[in-house]
């Protein structure tokens, strides 16, 4: 997969800048690194008490700014039984700015385009600092069952959703394939 974009924020684990290396120290992160601290707490929450059907974990132990996540397709939707992988990319002023979230698993959905970009208000202008990874994942999960067909990224899918649910389901299954972790 293409990780060029992330290189602007993070270098290889061997060459961490001092600010990032600090969080590898056994003691807790120094104060002021609110982004790191917050991501660590979120990781704890997700590991100890994750909501059913969602999970997330950092790609690399030394770098909390890129995460992989999965959501299970909700029952009673065309996505039931399927699992979707996503990537989260956290800006250095997270949580004051939204993470960049992409579907890695190809998905046929009115609000997701063919490169995995998502059109969801809380990831754009409706983001607030009180959201977290888990709430985003749960929102995405409910987006699967309740697409916003008024502002589609995939116009065909938006039309089929109402017109021909069977054809929609076929397209969903046709598009879905498992992707390997890098």
């Amino acid at each position, binding site marked *: 997969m293409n990780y060029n*974009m992330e290189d*602007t*924020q993070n270098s290889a684990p061997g060459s961490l800048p*001092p*600010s990032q290396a600090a*969080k*590898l120290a*056994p*003691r*807790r992160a120094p104060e*002021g*690194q*609110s*982004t790191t*601290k*917050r991501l*660590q*707490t*979120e*990781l*704890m*929450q997700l*590991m*100890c*008490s994750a909501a059913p059907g969602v999970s997330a*974990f*950092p*790609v*690399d*132990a*030394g770098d909390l700014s890129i995460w992989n996540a999965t959501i299970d397709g909700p029952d009673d939707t065309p996505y039931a039984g399927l699992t979707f992988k996503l990537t989260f990319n956290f*800006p*250095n*002023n997270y*949580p*004051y*700015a*939204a993470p*960049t979230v992409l579907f890695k698993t190809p998905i046929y959905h009115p609000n997701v*385009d*063919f*490169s995995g*970009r*998502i*059109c969801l208000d809380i990831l*754009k*202008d*409706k983001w*607030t*600092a*009180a959201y*977290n990874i888990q709430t985003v994942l749960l929102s995405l999960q409910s987006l699967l069952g309740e697409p916003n067909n008024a502002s589609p*990224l*995939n*116009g*065909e899918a938006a039309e089929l959703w109402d017109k021909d649910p069977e054809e929609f389901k076929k397209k969903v299954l046709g598009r879905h394939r498992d992707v390997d972790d890098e």
Partner: protein
Amino acid sequence: MASKANRDNLQEVEDSTDWLNTPLAPLAAVESALRCQVCTEFYTTPMITSCSHTFCSLCIRRCLSIDGKCPGCRAPDQELKLRSNWPLEEAVDAFKKARSGLLEHARKPVIIGRSSPKRKLDCVQENEADDGPRKRTRSSSKRTATASQQTVVVDSEQEDEDYIPNDGLVACPICNGRMTEMAIDRHIDQCNGIPPATSDSRSKPRASATFSTSSKTFSKPERLPHLSYSMFKDNNLRKKLSELGISANGPRQLLEKRHLEWVSIWNANCDSKNPRTKFELKQELDKWERTQGSAWVASNSHKPGSQLLDKEFDGLAWSSAHDDSFKELIAKARRKPPTGSIAPPESQSPRNAVSDDAIVEATPPRTTDYQMGGYSAPTTTLSSTSAEQLSGDLVAGLKNHDLPSRGPATADSIANMGDVAIRKSNMASARPLQP
């Protein structure tokens, strides 16, 4: 492998999940309620918003300075309307003090957990070298299996206070009320389990805490006002920063971000019960500079997507700089019917120099193509364009788009560009503008 290393780091992170899998698991909810939703740490100087949500002073000030909305409910709010939430702060302080002891207690197997608070208390008693009735009660409870009632009393005392005040008084083993040795025998005969109000050990620290609060509120530093940055020319803003005693270097947008952060840090400190010194605040700003300020400059010049999401996104400069790619996209869209997959505006597209003509003529690109790419068209800045704002935008825009193409920017080159930009912007604002 990765997960193991992460787990090791996380051992040191204190959070509400520490209580899960202990007998005190319900405290996880108590602890989450005492933590800020923004930073997920215990509230530091909690402030209550107009919509009755509570956040750390610094967290809510940062949020409001970004979009003026409460992170809890998106209701519009202003920093001026924030009020301190003192009782919550007291609750947080009390819980933080009790936390490690409680957690230790909760994590131990039940029988060992019982003995630990008693050992502490016994030590204190032996120091007192006192053979009063109280000592006999405690030491006998250590050995008797049937003394569970008294053990519970000891535990609850442990939760309230970690120490026994050295006030020459002794505690009643039934109600924990403190009184003189002379009085205790008579008291025990008629004790009903409710401690006499005057001798309650808890009342003392609480009263003193409230007292110190009110005495400190008078010597507070003045809060800083927010600036409307579009009213400031580069040099004036730099002067403003120097007057505040913070660094005045860097590109325009960084200056604004730095000032914003400083105002948040400063004003949050004004809210605090225990204000820190200006030196400490500056260290905090330095940290921000290292972790966000400089990184922000680097990432912003490379990532077009993140820029579009920025509140202060400069739509005018963006549309003029990417005029070519927009036209290209429009042409493409007309050639063939829209499909689902579209390339985003490319960052490496030729950046034409920002000419005055381009600015006046620039129109918001509104094509189906554009909207389907998932980006919002930057129309808002254009509609409310005034001459003053335009010049400000131009300055910001010039820096934004000239910087990356010139490679690593030095302080000198930035200052030079600032001057050029001001001259250009003066020209721009002097011209009559068409709507």
